[in-house]
């Protein structure tokens, strides 16, 4: 066990508002450096011993202790500060800060197991968190009610189950839960399921089912739409079609948080991309400048004296001009390359930060 122990001498030090207040033998905010992050307390030989599991979340602890940190922004669509989540001893999300503006399409890009679903489902109110603050449309998802949910649209990674109802019946039923739903038939038109409106949910193909998931997600006229890996398992053609669907939703002014492990998808759809790996956000940028790509040095390579040579430079034109002077005719095997988005991405997720 990597757990630290702290002695808590008396129960008087328990503060109101501390999750363990009133229960003797547990921690207080005064003693515990990170509120709510401590989970397990036990009695040992008459002394109160706090097993401080948040020692497993050093980063979240550091962030929480930083005096200069900004509080979460209630006006943002989503605002996250120092979010951490453990499954047992495994830290799935480790000190994540993120702001998503209203009206933007934000892609959370990362490999499988990076913590995308965990983060998104905490924002949706499905999962609990171990540390940090989260505001979604100005409210804490862990405590928000039906009125808050009426403003969200959720497309889960796993999708909805099989159903004996037809596509139209399913969308209508979903619409009946919301205060100001869209017209179900218009929604079917939008996702391209009009021809399948009379088909039962269980008989749809994989791609059609995903469209149905989106139809169910948007019929409530959400201000904020979550899409967790909406296109995983699609063929390239279906993916393109799906992208145009997302673009038409953008026209309707819906804020979107979408997760993906496809780089091209994030680049094609998102206003901004956050790259997440091992539970940490390693970069947030507009797609064109991800990983400093626009300013990354170019690599000029050529063959000289029978050997392949290459040089990284911020001024490739000057170098090429110089080379042109050194060689009588063509520069042998001359090539100027810049890192592709793929290179940048692989470097980002390969590097422990």
């Amino acid at each position: 066990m990597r757990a630290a122990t702290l002695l808590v001498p008396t129960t008087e030090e328990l503060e109101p508002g501390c999750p363990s207040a009133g229960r003797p033998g547990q921690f207080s905010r005064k003693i515990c450096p990170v509120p709510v992050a401590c989970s397990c307390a036990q009695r040992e030989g008459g002394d109160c011993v706090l097993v401080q599991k948040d020692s497993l979340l050093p980063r979240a602890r550091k962030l929480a202790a930083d005096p200069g940190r900004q509080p979460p922004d209630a006006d943002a669509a989503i605002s996250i500060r120092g979010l951490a989540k453990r499954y047992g001893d495994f830290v799935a999300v480790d000190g994540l800060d993120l702001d998503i503006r209203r009206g933007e399409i934000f892609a959370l890009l990362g490999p499988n197991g990076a913590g995308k679903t965990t983060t998104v489902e905490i924002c949706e109110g499905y999962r609990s968190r171990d540390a940090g603050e989260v505001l979604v449309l100005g409210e804490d998802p862990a405590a928000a009610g039906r009125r808050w949910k009426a403003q969200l649209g959720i497309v889960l990674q796993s999708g909805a189950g099989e159903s004996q109802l037809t596509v139209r019946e399913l969308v209508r039923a979903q619409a009946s839960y919301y205060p100001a739903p869209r017209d179900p038939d218009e929604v079917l038109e939008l996702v391209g399921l009009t021809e399948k409106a009379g088909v039962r949910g269980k008989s749809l193909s994989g791609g059609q089912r995903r469209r149905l998931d989106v139809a169910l997600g948007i019929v409530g006229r959400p201000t904020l739409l979550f899409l967790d890996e909406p296109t995983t398992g699609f063929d390239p053609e279906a993916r393109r079609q799906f992208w145009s669907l997302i673009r038409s939703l953008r026209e309707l002014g819906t804020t979107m948080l979408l997760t993906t492990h496809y780089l091209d998808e994030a680049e094609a759809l998102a206003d901004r991309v956050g790259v997440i790996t091992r539970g940490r956000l390693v970069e947030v940028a507009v797609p064109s400048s991800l990983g400093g790509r626009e300013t990354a040095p170019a690599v000029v390579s050529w063959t000289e004296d029978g050997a392949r040579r290459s040089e990284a430079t911020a001024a490739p034109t000057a170098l090429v001009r110089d080379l042109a002077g050194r060689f009588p005719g063509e520069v042998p095997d001359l090539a100027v390359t810049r890192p592709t988005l793929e290179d940048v991405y692989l470097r980002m997720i390969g590097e422990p930060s």
Partner: protein
Amino acid sequence: MTTTDEVSLPSLPSVYRSRAGVELKEFFRQREAVVFTLMLPVLLLVVFGAVLNFDLGDGVTFTQYFMAGIIAAGILGASLQNMAISIATERSDGTLKGLAGTPMPRSAYFVGKVVQVLAVTAAIIAILVLIGVVFYGIDLPPGADWLTFAWVTVLGSASCTLLGIAVSSLARNGRSASATVTPFALLLQFISGVFFQFSEIPSWMQTVAALFPLKWMAQGLRSVFLPDSLAASEPAGSWELGRVALVLIVWCLIGLLLCVRTFRWQDRDSR
């Protein structure tokens, strides 16, 4: 709380109606569910009625005795088995999680399920009684017995619905719920006086059966379908209607407590 410029959430009755519609369609369009829950009791009544139409004395045939038992078993199937399997399925395939992410009031899910159970139960009872009356000369119960019929059905179905909802939380998915609940229900039917006369079952089995609602439902329904002279051949020497009501109410309370404590909208390992 509601301000004027805020659109208000849909009213409870409208969401309840919508969920009731969903649940009725989900059940009656699913062939396996209809065959298993509705047709099986009917088939059993037809087969048993034709084969075991012997006399129990007092001019009462076993078919009359079986009528009460198979209705009780039908109620069990429509509530306990149906709820355990369908909710476990909906939990493991993400239907429940999806609903939990909408502003649907959570009570609406249960209202929909209750409407489904009531509709299926009413259908089973209507078909069974009709077949009994038309083919096996079973007399419709006299006036006061309808009241007993009604409360035994309502209490039995309520307790078994609540238990079914609670049991659904133990299963990993619909398939595993079916694999555990179906044999259990069958076993219960054998020892609760559905397929055999309860008085002929070894007394330790009677004791086991008395722990569960089915035995009491069957006994209550026998008081409806059999002449009172046969009460003497019950192990207790009477229909024990007071005790029937008591046991079923206790099971309702236990079921409710278990539901409140165990109901989950998501798979255990996705939180």
